[in-house]
């Protein structure tokens, strides 16, 4: 696997004279201090992330923490105040106007938080927009657009205008528009936020299937922790423009870097995201006494798949891999530890 998107020490400051304020931010002033003293808003503060090819990188954080600002750097809708953004090894800041346009046409597509649909174009024209600017044939545009409209479940609405659709439907038009250009990289800014739970879950599943098949590189912004755990290979958490933690979903849940992250993850249904292999103790290290009852579980099983069984009949859990080899044990002790809400740094809340 190779690095697809690399963001290196990026700073973004909004205001009259960002260059003047930059040193202050680099010396560690917080967003609030900078705003109070200079009237400038810190969008991003020394953010570095690497997104690997074929993975879904989820970005989380409170409102105003800089998520949308970050994602806009990747296709250079925003120029950084300092730092580097490279995609497939090309520094996007060094692209001239023409290459930038080619790059945006063929390398990445984007779903916008507030949809960004063209109010004067019908659904099918909106969905086909990416292909239209590429100068594709009309027939081909319509064929592809109809496919994508079908994929997001909007067949029958293709000749309506965005204002005639509900918020969730508009969001799906935005999604279809991004899918239509079939680019390697997809930037999705709260792409599912306006959908109802059923369609949302359906869209998440479609995205996971799409990933399994096409291995796109996705940067996904969401406010919903369950969604980020379901979709993300890695999760990055932003606070006030700073990246406070990057890690796999399990790392974020089990070892929140600070109170901010801990607060984020405190209400998650841990049994649903923790796998047996994460908390098992390897046979060599296992010292406790074995219960007479044993239950065999697959190492990739989530806790909530076997928890009810253990509650009914106390048993020692043997964790096995696909071919049935013993990988480790789980006892009540590990279970209770895994299911207890944690403070930062894994300290158990009293």
């Amino acid at each position: 696997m190779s690095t697809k998107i690399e963001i290196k020490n990026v700073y973004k400051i909004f205001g009259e004279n960002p260059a003047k304020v930059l040193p202050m931010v680099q010396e560690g002033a917080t967003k609030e201090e900078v705003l109070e003293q200079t009237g400038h808003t810190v969008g991003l503060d020394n953010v570095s992330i690497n997104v690997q090819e074929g993975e879904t990188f989820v970005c989380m954080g409170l409102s105003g923490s800089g998520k949308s600002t970050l994602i806009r750097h990747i296709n250079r809708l925003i120029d950084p105040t300092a730092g580097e953004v490279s995609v497939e090894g090309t520094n996007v800041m060094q692209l001239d106007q023409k290459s930038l346009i080619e790059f945006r046409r063929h390398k990445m597509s984007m779903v916008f938080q507030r949809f960004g649909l063209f109010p004067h174009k019908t659904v099918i024209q909106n969905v086909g927009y990416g292909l239209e600017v590429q100068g594709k044939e009309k027939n081909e545009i319509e064929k592809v657009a109809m496919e994508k409209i079908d994929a997001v479940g909007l067949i029958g609405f293709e000749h309506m205008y965005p204002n005639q659709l509900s918020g969730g439907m508009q969001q799906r038009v935005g999604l279809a528009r991004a899918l239509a250009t079939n680019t390697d990289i997809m930037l999705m800014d709260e792409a599912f936020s306006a959908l109802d739970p059923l369609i949302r879950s359906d869209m998440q599943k479609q995205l996971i299937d799409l990933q399994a098949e096409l291995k796109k590189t996705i940067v996904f912004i969401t406010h919903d922790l369950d969604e980020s755990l379901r979709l993300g290979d890695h999760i990055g958490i932003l606070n006030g423009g700073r990246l406070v933690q990057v890690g796999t979903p399990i790392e974020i849940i089990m070892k929140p870097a600070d109170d901010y992250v801990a607060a984020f993850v405190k209400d998650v249904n841990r049994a649903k995201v923790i796998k047996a292999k994460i908390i098992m103790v390897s046979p060599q290290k296992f010292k406790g006494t074995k219960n007479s009852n044993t239950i065999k579980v697959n190492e990739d099983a989530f806790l909530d798949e076997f928890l009810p069984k253990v509650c009914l009949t106390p048993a020692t859990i043997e964790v096995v891999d696909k071919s049935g080899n013993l990988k480790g044990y789980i006892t009540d002790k590990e279970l209770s530890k895994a299911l207890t809400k944690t403070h930062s740094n894994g300290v158990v809340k009293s």
Partner: protein
Amino acid sequence: MEKYKKYINLIYLAIFVGMVVMAYTTSKYRPESVFVLFTDLSWLGDWPKWLDFPLMPFLNKWFDILIVKYGIMFEGINFFLLGIYGQMKNFLVGLPWPIVMISVILLAYFASGKQMGTTIMVGFCVFFLGFLSPRYWDKCIMTTTIVVIGMLLCLVIGIPIGIAMARNKKVRNALLPILDLMQTIPSFCYLIPGILLFGLGAVPAIVAIFVYAVPPLIRLTDLGIRLVDKEVIEAAEAFGANKKQKLWGVQLPLALPNIMQGINQCTMMSLAMVVIASMIGTRGIGDEVLLGLQQLNVGMATEAGIAIVLLAIIFDRITQSYGERMQERVHHTKEKVKLK
């Protein structure tokens, strides 16, 4: 730039002093020597005659040079506009009046999106133009022709300027004061250079209309483009639209309601101007008002005044209902958004 900012007040002061000195040295009325000013303080009473900035002679000299050097160019413009005006006027005047009337009614019908109310109203107004006085028919056609040509000139030149302003902040900063100036100078003032450059008649009126009516169109084009939702523009950029695709595919269509509003204002101002232009011998419905005024004939002036109002209603209804339809088409809402 930064360096100069510190001294800007000093520079202004220097310019001011220079102007005063220049006024003094060029004035015929200045005292024999400066020292008299210190001994004889009577100049502090009334505004002294020598304290008079020589702008008028300067402008006149400048204008003479303009006529001598670029006379050919103005001749050309004159010839061109007069040609178009003559052709169009003769054609319309030559047509039988019912055909003209039906054409205007059809125009109103389609421009308003087949609204019967607007169409009938426009039809009545057209009929009443001739009905008020048979003489008015041809005069209204002349006035309309001048307004239409002035408008076309505004569109062809104003909209591209508006686009340039929306795209480039420097262009906007440079043009805004000029637009302010164009709008605040009393409209009469435009007529005099018009006469000198183009003689009497329709052409100075067309030029005056252009100068007077183009600013709102430029402003509203600029505003309309800049008011387009930022995320919509970002979406176009994110999918790799180039400047041309962005302009023609997204910005202009979405700015169209505002541009239509500009066109509507532009027509109204043109009509106001063309009436004033009758004072420099532009033939049209305006000279009926002038005639009534000269003869102290209240009935005549009022009748012609009513004809002008009717003409204004016709122009307004057609452009405005078309604008409303654009608004609907762009935003696809049933609710009517009033343009004014």
